[in-house]
């Protein structure tokens, strides 16, 4: 009967969350922190994996780890995405390299006492979106990369035999890199008209800008864990948002040959036979607008809340269910400003208008008892996540869309050591998106979107655990 009650509860949660229009999801978040957690569908708050990655998944639960525990792991994320353009029917493949997401945790819980101490180094947010040079959306992003690392010292306290809490400050470092084409058709001529009005086609790349900068940020995470009885456990955690001000980013510009030659005279200096590249070359020379300079941007890594439960009432089997909320609404506008430029025409305020998101995570772990495989863990998980981005913000920067995660994994003990390995497949159905800039909020998805983004990914993760 208990099993059926659990099923009914789980199904109810699914029905409540998924179809009701509650966005669930991801943005540039990364949950690939520990191979065990990945294999369990990230359902790791109410009954975390018994390793030091608890420092991230539930800082309050680390009092359940006796002695010294360490965990080191890495996840390899291989993206496979493309964009199919309506107008030409062409499909443009992504060119993103495999992303490697590391994590390292150490925790110590004395044999006596109620406190535990630890430190975690992990990557909860990150992004690499990269396209080939002929991608028509390169004017929004040819490459977008966010590399963030959080360092979290952790302190947890066992309140009583059932409940414990934990918290720790977060010191974070984030590096950002954005490479964009510069569209000649959008540039102003001396008369005030754009080059586009003089006939230059949209997406005529005459230059390329690379912004690179880094910033520090500070936050905190707290968690609580409760062992209600021998079968049920619950947990919750809250991570503060961290805003990174990239105030001293470097912007460099490179001229890209267009090889265009004007076929007829419009107005001086736009005369028949004039190479367009000669017309724009002074912009890249000393005194021009497109020379190396400083740039600023600001990105907030949103806060996270998750809560869940674990059930171990079935012999050798654990079931975990989490609900997770991420405050993506803070990713509303992405400013890219050039404070030392002679005018403001280079400045951009990219409208993102993300929505807060929720997701449901379901995982299971089965412990083998056969003599040759004693205490081996077989794990499986699933996560359904709707897009954080609204329909008008599916862009080359991040072609965000609804996703389903399917995970499998295994844990192999070896004395004081163990190794976890897992695999996840991320599937999307595709989403219509844009390759042009959205310049005001009145522009709708139907007006902006000119193709379909598809995105799939495979993740391999491995973690090594040691106990002392």
């Amino acid at each position, binding site marked *: 009967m208990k*099993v059926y009650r*659990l*099923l009914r509860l*789980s*199904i109810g949660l*699914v*029905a409540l969350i*998924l*179809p009701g229009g509650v966005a*669930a999801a991801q943005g540039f978040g990364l949950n690939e922190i520990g191979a065990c957690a990945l294999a369990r569908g990230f359902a790791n708050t109410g009954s975390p994996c018994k390793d030091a990655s608890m420092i991230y998944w539930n800082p309050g639960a680390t009092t359940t780890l006796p002695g010294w525990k360490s965990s080191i792991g890495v996840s390899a994320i291989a993206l496979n995405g493309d964009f199919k353009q*309506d*107008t*030409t*029917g*062409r499909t443009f493949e992504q060119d993103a390299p495999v992303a490697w997401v590391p994590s390292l945790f150490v925790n110590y819980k004395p044999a006596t006492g109620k406190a535990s101490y630890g430190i975690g180094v992990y990557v909860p947010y990150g992004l690499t979106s990269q396209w080939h040079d002929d991608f028509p959306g390169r004017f929004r992003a040819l490459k977008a990369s966010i590399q963030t690392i959080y360092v979290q010292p952790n302190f947890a306290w066992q309140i009583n035999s059932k409940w414990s809490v934990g918290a720790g400050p977060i010191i974070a470092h984030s590096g950002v890199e954005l490479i964009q084409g510069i569209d000649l*058709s959008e540039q102003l001529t001396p008369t005030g008209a*754009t*080059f*586009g*009005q*003089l*006939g*230059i*086609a*949209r*997406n*005529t790349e005459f230059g390329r800008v690379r912004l690179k900068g880094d910033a520090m940020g500070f936050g905190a995470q707290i968690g609580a864990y409760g062992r209600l009885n021998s079968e049920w456990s619950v947990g919750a955690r809250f991570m503060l948002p961290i805003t990174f001000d990239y105030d001293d980013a470097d912007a460099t510009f490179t001229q890209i040959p*267009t090889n*265009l*030659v*004007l*076929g*007829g*005279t*419009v107005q001086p200096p*736009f005369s*028949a*036979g004039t190479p*367009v590249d000669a017309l724009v070359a002074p912009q890249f020379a000393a005194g021009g607008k497109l020379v190396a300079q400083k740039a600023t941007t600001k990105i907030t890594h949103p806060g996270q809340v998750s809560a869940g439960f674990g059930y171990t009432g*079935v012999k*050798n*089997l654990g*079931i975990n269910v989490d609900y997770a909320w991420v405050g993506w609404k803070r990713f509303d506008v992405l400013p890219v400003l050039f404070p030392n430029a002679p005018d403001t025409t280079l400045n951009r305020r990219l409208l993102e208008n993300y929505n807060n998101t929720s997701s*449901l995570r*379901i995982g*299971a772990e089965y412990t083998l008892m056969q003599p040759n495989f004693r205490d081996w863990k077989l794990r*499986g998980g*699933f996560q*359904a996540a*709707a897009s954080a981005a609204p329909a008008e913000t599916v862009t080359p920067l991040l072609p965000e*869309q*609804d996703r*389903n995660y399917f995970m499998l994994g295994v844990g192999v003990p070896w004395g004081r050591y163990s190794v976890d390995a897992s695999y996840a497949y991320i599937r*999307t*159905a*595709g*989403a*219509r998106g844009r390759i042009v800039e959205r310049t005001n909020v009145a522009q709708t998805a*139907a007006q902006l979107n000119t193709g*379909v983004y598809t995105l799939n990914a495979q993740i391999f993760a491995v973690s090594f655990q040691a106990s002392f």
Partner: protein
Amino acid sequence: MFRRQHMIRGALTIVSLAGALSCTSDHGVIMTPVVNPLFRSYVAIGNSITAGFQSDGINDSTQQRSYALLLARQMNTRFAYPSLVNPGCRPPIANFLTQARVGTGSTSTTCLLRNPASVTEILNNVAVPGAGSGDADTPVGPAGSTLTTLFLGGKTQVAKALDARPTFATVWIGNNDVLQPAITGIPGSATPLTTFVTNYAKMINDLVAGAPGIKGVLIGVGQTANIPILFSAAALSNPAFVAGLNAAVAPKTIVVDVTTCTPTSTARIGFPIIAAIRAFPAAGGHPPTIACAKTATPPIGDIFVLDAAEQIQVSDLVNSYNAYIRAKADSIGFAYYDPNSLLNTLTATGQIPAVPNIGSATAPYGPYFSLDGVHPNTAAHILIANDLITVINAKFATNLQKLPTT
């Protein structure tokens, strides 16, 4: 054991159910369904007619009346054209009698730029007014103009067409190789056949090489005999017609050379002679005497006059062009359309008048030519589109529907 199996089965059910609920069954792709995959990407290469030039001008309104756009609509395929801000570049003539142009204060040098909303990566109508066979595949061709830059932005028509990865093309190039020489009465300045063939072959070969598998229609060159801007010299025996011309050149007065201009004269006179007489004695002007055959005082009787021999010379050249175009179409699996069947019919039925009604403000050249006497008007574009549909359906076994003609 039983309990565990149920548990696992239940978990799988949850996963399946959650997956089913969260999967997006369709990503909302709303694509215009073309009537045939052949027309997935249609491009139109050409000159002023294809671009939508009418009444000595072009703007968004006339661009929307091009046969190419009408054809694209019947294909139900995307068709982007380089829309010009109204009143245009240059604005079309709105009144034949006053020569007033569309838009307050507009002149023949008024030129507004591209509509910002029309700035797009891919154009389907890449035709440029004035383009001849030497222009469509050359960055800076002999007929390069302001519109060449405004429409192509530094590319050639062929390169611009290939940007669209075309599956279907119409190509109507060649009229300008012979038009001005005919109108100005200097047929010797027309593009020689060998040059035309070289230019045309390069254009088509580059198009086909850049778009493997492309199909389409090559359109022949119109005979200048069917263009009402060249009027019958016999009309100069009509005092009322001459009075109308005098009103147009006032305060000058036209002198008709009655020794060469008789009621049986077969010469054709280019209407731009009127503007030239008005401009005389400035450069490019013409004395106010009109002769219908060459005289001892050139340019009288020569410039703006196509005598019988010159008409044959022009006609033969056009026939040679068209023979090559037809053969080229056959060689690449394209259809061929000869517009002269339509023009001959309209001429034979008097709908292309031999003599313009110069008292009419809105239809001096009949019901199918615009106010410049060279470019088809909207009604004619519909006829051309329908003729093309007939040709396309016959060649490619398609089922494009014709446009209503009323």
